[in-house]
């Protein structure tokens, strides 16, 4: 069972292979089949949780500044690679590594805002979007210099022994960690944005920058915090998925772009939508890869993205901000 699970994991998280589920289907009994579906759902929810966190990062910056921050992808890679360096190379305690990696990437996010974004001579949205693309390349190139191009593993937070579930399915503890940490992150964000003064100030800035500035909110500082937050969120996503899928200097690109698709699916800028979008996308991808074809696994998210843009561009939970002209 462990080996079979490992193989499934491998197929779902690495490059598409041609060995289709359909081919093995004849050999499987019904029990196996339902187990497999359960497995796909667990995997789908796990990856969906990651997309949701990443989508949240995109949303926070979008709400604060109106830009699409493509450097979000690099935050994920950096989180994973920081974790790898600390835990595997320097043998630092897991909890401490988690903390340092998250704060480290949050700082990088903040530096991006303090440096290039704030000092850009043109504040046009289109220029700033391009700037995040450039920054993302600089970060990715630097990461490649520092860590090379190999995929590296990070040890799971609490062992690799699968836990048996009711109904015969199994789950690797790391999946539970992913769910738990995602829920915790979401609750913290909810608390922050609904209950604290700073969170309210950030929401005010998102609604109307000028009005926020008029009532004494430092819009610049809110933008700075939004970048730091997205950095931290990206890092957390990269860190918790690393033990399952391994990590490398460019893992963040696909995860990040799919997280972006999840944000659009949920409704760009909408926090509840980010969670919903992430989970739906994760499930679609995992079930699609398992039952239809693993070759087009990566295409599923982007196909959904196009469908949403064409059919309901405000996303599932959108407020209808996007007017037609």
């Amino acid at each position, binding site marked *: 069972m462990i080996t079979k699970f490992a193989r499934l994991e491998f197929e779902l998280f690495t490059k598409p292979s041609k060995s289709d589920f359909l081919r093995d289907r004849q050999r499987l009994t019904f029990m196996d089949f339902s187990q497999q579906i359960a497995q796909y759902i667990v995997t789908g929810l796990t990856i969906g949780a990651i997309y949701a966190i990443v989508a949240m990062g995109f949303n926070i910056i979008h709400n604060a500044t109106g830009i*699409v921050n493509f450097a979000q992808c690099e935050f994920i890679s950096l989180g994973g690679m920081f974790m790898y360096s600390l835990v595997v190379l320097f043998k630092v305690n897991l909890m401490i590594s988690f903390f340092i990696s998250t704060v480290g990437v949050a700082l990088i996010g903040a530096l991006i805002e303090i440096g290039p974004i704030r000092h850009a001579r043109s504040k046009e949205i289109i220029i700033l979007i391009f700037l995040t693309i450039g920054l993302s390349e*600089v970060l990715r190139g*630097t990461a490649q210099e520092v860590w090379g191009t190999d995929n590296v593993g990070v040890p799971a937070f609490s062992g690799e022994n699968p836990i048996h579930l009711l109904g015969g399915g199994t789950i690797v503890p790391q999946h539970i960690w992913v769910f738990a940490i995602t829920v915790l992150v979401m609750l913290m964000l909810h608390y922050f944005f609904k209950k604290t003064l700073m969170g309210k100030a950030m929401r005010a800035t998102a609604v109307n920058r000028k009005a926020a500035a008029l009532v004494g909110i430092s819009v610049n500082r809110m933008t700075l915090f939004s970048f730091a937050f997205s950095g931290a969120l990206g890092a957390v996503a990269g860190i918790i998925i690393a033990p399952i899928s391994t990590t490398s200097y460019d893992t963040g*690109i696909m995860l990040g*772009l799919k997280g972006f698709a999840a944000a659009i699916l949920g409704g760009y800028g909408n926090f509840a939508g980010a969670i919903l979008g992430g989970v739906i996308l994760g499930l679609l991808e995992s079930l699609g890869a398992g039952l239809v074809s693993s070759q087009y696994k990566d295409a599923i998210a982007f196909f959904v*993205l*196009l469908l949403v843009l*064409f059919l309901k561009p405000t996303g599932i939970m959108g407020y209808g901000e996007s007017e037609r002209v």
Partner: protein
Amino acid sequence: MKQKDIIGFGALAVIIIILPLFVESKYYLIVLNVIGLNTIVVVGLNLLIGFAGQISLGHAAFYGLGSYFSGILTVNYGFPLWPAMLLGMLATGAVAYLIGYPSLKLRGHYLVMATLGFGIIVNILMGGLEQFTGGHDGLMGIPPLTMGGLAFDNDLKNFYLIWSFVFLCMLAARNLINSRVGRALRAISGSEVAANSLGVNTADYKVKVFVLSAMFASISGSLYAHYITFISPSSYDFYYSIQVVTMVIVGGMGSLWGSLLGAGVLTCISEALHIAKQYHIIAYGVFLCLVLVFLPEGILMGIYNLFLKAKTKKHIIKADRH
């Protein structure tokens, strides 16, 4: 045609004709051809970015569609070469219309998301549809273009072919910019609301310019396929889309001659770093960031403006002394 343009295009024509006489190494000829191919894509993309104020992160897909239409139709189905290229161009334009129409009807930057998704899907399909595209191994044996009895089968002949297309595309772009459509587009990039209130159908113009820019990319892709005679999905990935966007910005958004400069400078940088491929990404990223932060109008206009500024400063200092 303005005098400035006549001089510009005249100089370009002369340079194209005589340049190969001075280039002895085959390698430099290849680099020049790659610059030409990139320039066509960049000129088209610049119409979209510089004049319609929209971002496309999927131009690699349109470039690739041109290549694969030409490649598949001629290799697998024995199509005649030029009609295959034309068909590819029209089909790419139609696809761009399907992508652009729904996303450009919306206010905001929806095109960037649509083209991003589309680009990645196309790239995956190039590898996936093996029976047509040859999968990740690529498509081989694409015949070189011919004209009359002349086959464009070496680097020099392709130089003249590619750069003739560069010349024509730039001329077309210039005429477009200086026409009624161009004025409408410039009004849109200035202020969409103002343009709209003056009766410019902004969405319509944006879709048209997007389709046109996809067609430019498709032409370049077809030329590439017939020149190299081999195509594979890795030439058309997300990274290429970012590369051409970088060229547009470095050259200057909305600057026709800047497009040529941007494509030239960055293609040369890529080639210079050929041995140290890992520095590619950093070099492009740093270049992109520096230009965006300090010279958002691109290196051509940016340096010119700095020069003007310095000059006026000097005058002021002089005036103070007197």
